[in-house]
């Protein structure tokens, strides 16, 4: 699976994604500098990694969303190819308009780094085919602005279109709001676009791709994308 990881000034999970994807698929990952105007030939998956692009001094992701590479990312999306935004990458995707919603400061008003549980709401996406619907994943979060927010009517539309892919939950899969670590509306941890090829999520699958680090639940996300790109599963 040819993967391109976009590097913005201030990205700090780019090497982690490269490491995780390389472990699953071998050395097929390239880092793409934000000032580049095109993606490498034959790119399958594009990842916008976590970090603090431009220091997040303005709204998180707002500066990165204006980078030269974003035009190529949008073009990739238009072609129906998979794009994954993780943490700050999710924030960038909302700022580019590729995804709806906004990520606000956590309800606790402090940074939270911890393992949490998320429930897979759909397994008919390019990113989740290796999971079962309802499966609970153990996966880390690390963010200050992770509270997913949408105005009520848009939130209802998002839900009715089934565009919520991951929800925070208890280890048993209960999605009561007390199991949302950051106060996200409807416990939303990850959403997908209408076309089903752009996924944004606050949890870090690359941090849950090795036994040594305490969970391998994230690795199947990368495997799912690879299956999809190879034509195994159609969304």
């Amino acid at each position, binding site marked *: 699976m040819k993967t391109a990881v976009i590097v913005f000034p201030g990205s700090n999970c780019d090497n982690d994604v490269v490491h995780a994807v390389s472990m699953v698929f071998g050395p097929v990952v390239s880092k793409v500098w934000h000032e580049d105007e095109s993606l490498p030939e034959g790119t399958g998956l594009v990842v916008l990694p976590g*970090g603090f692009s431009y220091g997040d001094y303005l709204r998180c992701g707002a500066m990165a969303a204006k980078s030269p590479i974003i035009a190529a990312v949008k073009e990739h999306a238009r072609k129906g190819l998979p794009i994954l935004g993780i943490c700050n990458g999710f924030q960038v995707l909302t700022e580019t308009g590729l995804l709806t919603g906004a990520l606000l400061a956590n309800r606790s008003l*402090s*940074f939270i780094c911890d393992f949490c549980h998320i429930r897979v709401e759909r397994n008919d996406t390019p990113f989740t085919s290796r999971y079962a619907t309802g499966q609970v994943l153990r996966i880390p979060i690390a963010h*200050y602005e992770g509270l997913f927010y949408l105005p009520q009517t848009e939130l209802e539309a998002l839900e009715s279109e089934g565009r919520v892919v991951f929800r925070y939950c208890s280890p048993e899969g209960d999605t009561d709001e007390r199991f949302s670590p950051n106060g996200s509306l409807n416990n939303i941890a990850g959403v997908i676009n209408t076309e089903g090829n752009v996924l944004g999520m606050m949890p870090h699958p690359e941090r849950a791709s090795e036994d040594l680090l305490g969970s391998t639940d994230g690795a199947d996300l990368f495997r799912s994308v690879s299956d999809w790109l190879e034509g195994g599963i159609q969304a």
Partner: protein
Amino acid sequence: MSVNYLDVGLKEQEYLAIMDILGREPNMQELRILGVMWSEHCSYKSTRPLLSMFPNSGGAVVQGPGENAGIVDIGGGWGAAFKVESHNHPSAVSPYQGAATGVGGIIRDILAMGARPVASLDGLCLGDESLQQSRSLADGIVKGIAGYGNAVGVPTVGGKTLYDGCYNGNPLVNAMCLGVVRLDSIVSSKTARPGHLAILVGSRTGRDGIAGAAFASSGLADDTRASRPQVQIGDPFVEKLLIECCLEIHSKGLMVAMQDMGAAGITSSSSEIAAKSGTGIVINSELVPLRENDMEPWEIALSESQERMLLVAEQENLPEISKIAAKWELECAAIGKVTDDGQFVISDKGKIVVSLPAGMVGGSCPVISWTSREPSGRKATSQKGTTFSLSPHMIEKHLVTLLSNPSLSDKSGIFHQYDYMVQTGTVVPPGSAASIIRVRENGKLLGLAMEVDPWKCEIDPFTGSAEVFLKALRSLWVAGAEHLGMTNCLNFPSPEDPGNFWVISRCVEGLAAVARDLVCPVVSGNVSLYNESGDAKILPSPLVGVTGTFRDIAKPLSESFSCENETVFLAGFSKGTLNGSHFARAMAVEQNHREFPYLPEKEKIFMHSAIETVRKGLATSGRTVAGGGLLVSLAKMCVTSGIGISIDEELPLDDLAVFLFGETGPRAIYTVTENLEKDFASIWSGIPLIKLGQTGGKTFTIKGLLEIPVNEIARAWRR
């Protein structure tokens, strides 16, 4: 404005020494520079003879003290560069920025070795938790570490936090960083040659933090608000760019030397490079990119603006270096040149404003030998052991009291604010005695531990500081790691008081003894004196950071119970002592200045058994008996696993308080499956081994003495 030597913090004999070296009076600009460079913070003038006691070579040491950080060999052609540094005074004045720039500064020290920073740890000694002022300082400090460390992308994997009223006005913030570097590409500051360019990369230079080093070298004023301009402001985003930029320049072989700009900014970085390389250096102050206009040359030279590095490179590499800096959106300017005359020169638009021997600026401040005298109060104390008559029905109450003591209770409220997982190498996260990371570059595991125990150092500075060092080492051993080296931060009050200086000396001797006897060289460190405010001074607080590797061990030993129905053993020498313990302070037990046992040979035997236990896979969990003693350590094993324990052994009722709550000495708790008990016992043969009981159930039970549900332990510990 005219200044004299007193204004810049120099003493009369120092001024006379300057006159003697120069053969003339220094001008105003030179005086200001020497005032900073000859401050305690930059010159170590009070402690240099003491620090020379530390063994600093041999074993795994690749680079000892003298560079920006020490380096130990961690195998596979890779080294670990590590160091701890204080940011105490700035954090007292401006907790968020003080702590944040402390993290930033130590990261640049590691970067200056050519290493990629991969882990941070923080030692925090905070004031009385019941006071609003202390809580507010503590909150700012933690938020500052989080704000900087998280954005810069270096995981905060561990540390140590404790509370005592002595830190009310003067909290301690000691930041440690570890980075990895290929052994064949270590950067030195000794390799500059005449003709090389001095290139400044990073932020613009402003008026922030001017003379911060001198500020760090005296006691804190009653009203610390007046000192705020001496605190620097950090920008972790620029630091992140600086890391990537400098590592890229280094990976392309474009630089010959590098130095971070911390205390005393351009002056210290350039004069140290010149002094260590045996060259001179000229800095053209008008070439320094400035943040504000009309800065005097001495202000430019002494500014402590953050996120700047000084690179030394061949002229021909400047265009390529500038290109890389531009890619990372950083300022890059050739601000001077390495010369052959041994002089540190600042030139301002062609006019020489400072010309001093580089060695004089960068390192030849005369040593001050302060008087050392054992405080008279200490000698008269009784030599009898500390005792306490413990009523069995009070044990549960004592346990709950200790677990909810802020120094012993759960610290997850702090460390969950830190990104401790970025770089995907954190194998054992903060919250355990030893944090463990996997180094991506060579695939190996590294253990890291940090310790500080002011109360034991106050009881007896020599054996107390030895115990601090040993506590850190035991944490590594029980996890399965073999130690490689140590770094330390010597936090003390003023050395000018003979009693204080005696304590400082004895603490250094204690640390040096362990370094020598256990063969754990001291590769780097930092000294922070004058930790006083008003009438209050801190307790002696030397802090130790150690690192170690795992040989033939794939998985470190967990600190939490893993299964029910396993046998619980207490292994090791010493039943501990109440003197200097958390229990003694909580119960106001009379304590005395009695030495703790220091038994290096027994520590070695303990070390071998502990590491063999992990290597042979004989235990399912293990934890050193540390703060709070045996009962607290057992309770923590219960609460972190949710598994209870039942102790049915006859306990020594005559000395129950010491047995249950005593601290110090090499001891650990292990859980062992039944089929491995014999092998386990044989590894520990010749060492006292007590079979305490069994894991299982949901209560912590000691037959006839204690029965407390694990969830009540959790409530007390999590407060």
